[in-house]
């Protein structure tokens, strides 16, 4: 029984996608940083709510590999974002694009704070 379970254990581990993931080496620390920032920005589309940095899913790994290649080659973050967004739509990025539909998202809190300060000023003397 013991051996069966260990065999199953190993079998399950080994059956994961496992072509060699070399230690990700970068030409420069700047590229390394860009890579790490970018992978935190994109959503794993097959997971409930994780970034591709935090996920073991195959699609997430494919995206990480692709971003790694593009960063090494020297593509700009904007181009990389553009590529993934054109293929997956805006769902894939955790940083919502700035467009009329999201103006309220990005600007709303600051407008609210501004209104709050105005309200504060009406309550307070000598401001």
């Amino acid at each position, binding site marked *: 029984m013991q051996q069966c*379970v*260990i065999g*199953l*254990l*190993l079998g*399950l*581990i*080994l059956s*994961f996608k*496992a072509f*060699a*993931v*070399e*230690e*990700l080496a970068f030409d420069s620390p700047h590229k390394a940083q860009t890579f*790490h920032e970018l992978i*935190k*920005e994109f*959503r794993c589309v097959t*997971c*409930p*709510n*994780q*970034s591709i*940095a*935090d996920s*073991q899913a195959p699609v997430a790994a494919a995206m990480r590999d692709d971003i790694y290649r593009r960063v090494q080659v020297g593509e700009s973050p904007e181009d990389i974002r553009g590529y993934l967004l054109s293929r997956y*739509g*805006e*769902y*894939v*990025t*955790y*940083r*919502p*694009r700035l467009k009329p*539909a*999201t103006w*309220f*998202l*990005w600007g*709303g*809190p*600051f407008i*609210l*704070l501004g209104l*709050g*300060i105005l*309200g*504060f000023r009406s*309550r*307070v*003397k*000598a*401001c």
Partner: protein
Amino acid sequence: MIPEFGLFCLILALCFGLMVMAGGFNRSLAILQRPATFGMCAFIALGFIILVFGFLSDDFSVSYVAQNSNTQLPFMYKLCAVWGGHEGSLLLWVFILSLWTLGVTLISRAMPENIMRSLYAVLGAIHVGFLLLLLHTSNPFLRLLPSMPKEGADLNPLLQDPGFVMHPPFLYLGYVGFAIPFAFAMAAMLNPKESFSWAKWARPYALLAFSFLTVGISLGSWWAYYELGWGGWWFWDPVENASFMPWLVGAALVHALRVSSLKPIFNSWSLLLALCAFILSLVGTFLVRSGVLASVHAFASDPARGVFILYFLAVVMIGSFGLYIVHLQRRAAVSRLQFVSKESFILLGNIIFVSATATVLLGTLYPLIMEVLTNEKISVGSPYYSAVFVPIMMPLLLLMSFAPYTFWEQDSPKALFSRLLKPLLLCTGIIILVGYFAWLSLPAVSLAGVVLGILIVISSLFKLRGSLSFNKMGMIFAHFGLGVAVLGISLTTALETEKEVQLAVGSSVKVANYDIAFADLNEQEGPNYIAKQGHFVISHNNQPVANLYPEKRFFTARETMMTETAIDPGFLRDFYIALGERFHDGTWSVRIYIKPFVRWLWLGGIFVALGAFIAALTALQANYKRREA
């Protein structure tokens, strides 16, 4: 038989709850309220105990027990598997609500009769709502008979962890606790002719709830850190946000109540905050259980449940805010404040807290809003919150460093500055030192965070001079704690190192200034799992510094794999190693993190909770003394 009795207990509790509510409408029934409340709480407790008994006795005829437990599950986890799924955690919610209600009932005798009537009625109504939800859509005592499984499906391995024992109870103690200030606010609005200083009475409960919520959130963050294996401690996940929003409003509330309990100002503002804190808790309950938002934490979603919770939420929102709108009609003239005064700075701080809460709410709901309005799917995550939430909170942190030094009612900038001179000088000295060592290696935002954190910590500590009351101690602890947490967050996000490598047993790798060697790999057996355990040795300049034993566990019942991270905690840095996948050639993918100052985040949280707790006890004692006089 026993599970049916458990269900019957809940039904009885519902009946008692209705009785309590009736007392609110009919004066002659008011005499029943107190005993009915005791009855309601007793039967809810009994129902809860019966469910616990079902888990401890491996009663797999009960569907919920079968889904969340297993004969091999260790005792402690069987106990807390009770709140491992939707039905049981909802029962925990009601149970904790009944504990709070019991507490208020036992302590509060000296309050005006009408207020007590309304208080009982409102709390009773909330109980009734949740009991109806339980009985109608989420019965934890559903049976699987006649085909009862011999073995349960086991508790989700992710939850088989000490953190899980404590995280949900503390979290619920927190945001369920905001029901009490909510009930006080409602009672005050329902009885406008009573001259009742509800703020004084509600304040200790708000502080207690805030304290528990702080512990709950800190525990959740700490648990996610060591359990999930990616070194993160906050993900802006909808469920996390659902607990963070009541915390933010709760922080504003305790400050507003402080002012309202001392002076006849901010009454309407405190009422509004008290209503919002609990309603945000309810909104959070809705978001987590209705399947409306995708989250790793969310319970199995069921639109029927979502509809019911939404009805309940709508009744509470329309009822309470409707009452508030009527209250505004009656509102007396508001006085103007001096700009340089404690009241004014607290108000300003409150405004920032509310804006920050609105930010989190907007970010959490926006994917839903977009989908409803334009049928487009978007995601809102860390990059958004870092860009919007953080800048909004920064002025608040600055305010925190000097507001405690401001006098009530009227102060002058010169006098304030002279009081702040010594702490400011010390801060400047420290900042120059820090700047000398770290100026270029920290990004701007982190640097700002570090400066603000130092300001808050030093200014809080300097407050220890002079006369010390318990209330003041509470404030100092809480502010000090937040400063420490801010420092921890700023430093760890800027200075952490991460490396993912492929290692064979026997090889080593260099990360930052440390050598990390993969020394050994062997097998371990647990009560309901089998594991492969690695042994890593971390050395610095050839001196061993730490030994870490990360594992890959295979849980036999659910046939799932779990990563068990290994952490060497330290005051100044954490070492963190997680095993990834094993490759054909026998090498392992290993994730290594070095996280400086990450513990300061949770340490700070503990101090905040402690400070709020001290202030709560002080306020309770003051109210109690007042009663005896």
